[in-house]
């Protein structure tokens, strides 16, 4: 789960990482009120969970009262990579003489968090890695010991950073580690970490991602879930503990297991069409869950055909068949459903479905995908 900049900065401030004065605004009038409190010049920043915010016009410098509402209005009425802007961070503009990057992220191969410091902040770290790798230093953190100060000094020294900045850098890195560790983060990032003319450091932008698997013990974040980018159908699916992601094609699919679900989507593409969704019903799904899954797929107006691919391990195919049978009466006219059952109790499942000639059955995954694609092409647009 990704946090907004303003949320990350609240955590930064709580841990003593310097951040500019700021406030949130949902309307141009609120933006004006916040700016009046903190004083001009201010920066207006769209609070959307997307990169490339600056380039998309989501960040604007405002020098005085006469320009604020029009600028706020422009950003609030814009979309950034398709996401409508609903909220602005109004922040005191800060002078700075240099920009660093400081972040902690999990390295999957090492199975350790790594601390990353760069003397080229302000642009995405991946870009620095490509264009000026000598300006990045990183070090693994032992998760049992936590971040030690010598690690931060080693990185600062490696980059030739002015010694006067080492102390504040150690302090900020220690605070970042504390957040990373305590909040079950998978990423914490300050970019840019600005060097002010007075020689101190200040976080001008922040990113945090929290491990979804740890949300059960990070309950504070559940309240922040307003920003989870979900369609209403995805929300509905979540209620039934179905793993559903809406996509752009017109073949709906229902599969048990994430890997097999991806493979099924790939087969649809191989057969000449595109999947309308990813849907993993998980292991051991009950008839009710299967029925809910099919109902959700059928509600998607893009869907012209449905491909159901079940390889029973824990999941029993007869149970799946019962779930499908329960919602067959609700099948929209003109929709084709192709079912492929294999593994545990496949024979029993197929027998149940033989009573419903409106369902097409297939032996193998690829043949099922081909039938679904063929059927979808026969539906008049």
């Amino acid at each position, binding site marked *: 789960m990704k946090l907004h900049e303003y949320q990350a900065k609240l955590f930064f401030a709580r841990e003593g990482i310097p951040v500019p004065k700021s406030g949130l605004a949902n309307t141009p009038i609120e933006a004006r009120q916040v700016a009046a409190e903190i004083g001009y010049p201010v920066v207006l920043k769209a609070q959307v969970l997307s990169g490339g915010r600056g380039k998309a016009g989501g960040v604007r410098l405002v020098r005085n009262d006469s320009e604020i509402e029009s600028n706020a209005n422009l950003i609030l009425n814009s979309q950034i990579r398709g996401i409508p802007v609903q909220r602005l961070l109004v922040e005191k503009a800060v002078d700075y003489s240099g920009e660093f990057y400081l972040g902690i992220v999990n390295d*999957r191969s090492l*199975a350790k968090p790594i601390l990353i410091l760069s003397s080229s902040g302000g642009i995405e770290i991946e870009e620095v890695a490509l264009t000026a790798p000598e300006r990045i230093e990183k070090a693994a953190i032992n998760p049992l010991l936590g971040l030690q100060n010598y690690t931060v000094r080693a990185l600062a020294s490696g980059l030739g950073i002015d010694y006067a900045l080492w102390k504040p850098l150690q302090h900020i890195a220690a605070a970042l580690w504390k957040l990373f560790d305590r909040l*079950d983060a998978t990423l914490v990032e300050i970019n840019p970490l600005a060097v002010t003319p007075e020689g101190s450091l200040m976080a001008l932008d922040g990113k945090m991602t929290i491990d979804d698997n*740890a949300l059960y013990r990070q309950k504070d974040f559940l309240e922040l879930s307003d920003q989870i980018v979900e369609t209403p159908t995805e929300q509905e699916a979540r209620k039934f503990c179905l793993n559903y992601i809406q996509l752009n094609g017109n073949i709906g699919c229902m*599969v048990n297991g994430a890997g097999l679900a991806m*493979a099924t989507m790939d087969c649809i*593409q191989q057969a000449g069409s595109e999947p309308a969704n*990813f849907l993993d019903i998980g292991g051991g799904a009950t008839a009710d869950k299967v029925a809910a899954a099919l109902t959700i797929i059928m509600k998607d107006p893009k869907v012209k055909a449905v491909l159901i691919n079940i390889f029973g391990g824990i999941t029993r195919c007869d149970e799946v068949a019962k779930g499908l049978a329960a919602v067959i009466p609700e099948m929209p006219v003109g929709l084709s459903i192709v079912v492929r059952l294999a593994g545990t109790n496949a024979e029993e499942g197929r027998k149940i479905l033989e009573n419903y000639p409106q369902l097409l059955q297939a032996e193998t995954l690829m043949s099922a995908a081909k039938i679904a694609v063929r059927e979808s092409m026969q539906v008049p647009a």
Partner: protein
Amino acid sequence: MTILLNENAHILVQGITGREGLYHSERMQAYAKNVVAGTSPGHGGEWVLGDKVPVFDTVRDAKESTQADTSVIFVPAYAAADAIMESIEAEIRLIVCISEGIPIKDMLKVRALLEHSESRLIGPNSPGILSPGKVKAGIIPGSIAIPGRVGVVSRSGTLTYEVVQVLKDANIGVSTCVGIGGDPIVGTNFVECLDLFESDPHTDQIILIGEIGGNEEELAAEFILNQVTKPVYAYIAGRTAPENRRMGHAGAIIEGKTGSARSKIEALLRAGVQLFSYPEEIAEIIRI
């Protein structure tokens, strides 16, 4: 021969009195009579599986009484890292974690602990290990594979079953099938499994089933190029997956340039691996 474990394994099931744990212990016992013990805190002294298998409160007790050397874990995600660490502490040789949804932070600690131990961890979020005709540690259905000389290693569960079933339908047998798990941090990676298959005299060819997310497949490709002499076939799931959406598995997510199917497929092709683009195609391209 098999990799990781053989028919002499003494299997302990952690969480044996739970619904999943009990069901799959029965399946494992029916496949090969290797389950010697179970643990379930508070259930020490009970017996399960037709009153033939003792239940203990702790892994250490179970090991002392039954010489258990392999543990299969079925406990809920919030307690699973704790269960793995208990087995490491008790010096269980091979730990197979089926549980899904363990927080990454817990897994970082587990990995740090593993570095200082002799134990090997498979998973978490793994379907386990199946050596057809010999032994099964986990939830891979025994009926889908026949004994043979093809090694299978995968990040997925049911997708692995699909591929193994295709092999069986083509009368191709499997030496060992290992699911390394669909999480970002796992105990044993592709490279280690490839290494084991490369040195296993009873494996002639290897099938690798990967998916989007991380760079495990790229690392595997590099290893295959330099260290693997046996033919390798690979399938990568998720060619149609969008960026920045986690496709079910915690590990299956394309972030920026990292983790795309294309990058993995290209790396594997460069390493001389033969790619198949849908599960059934393996039967057409594999040469036995």
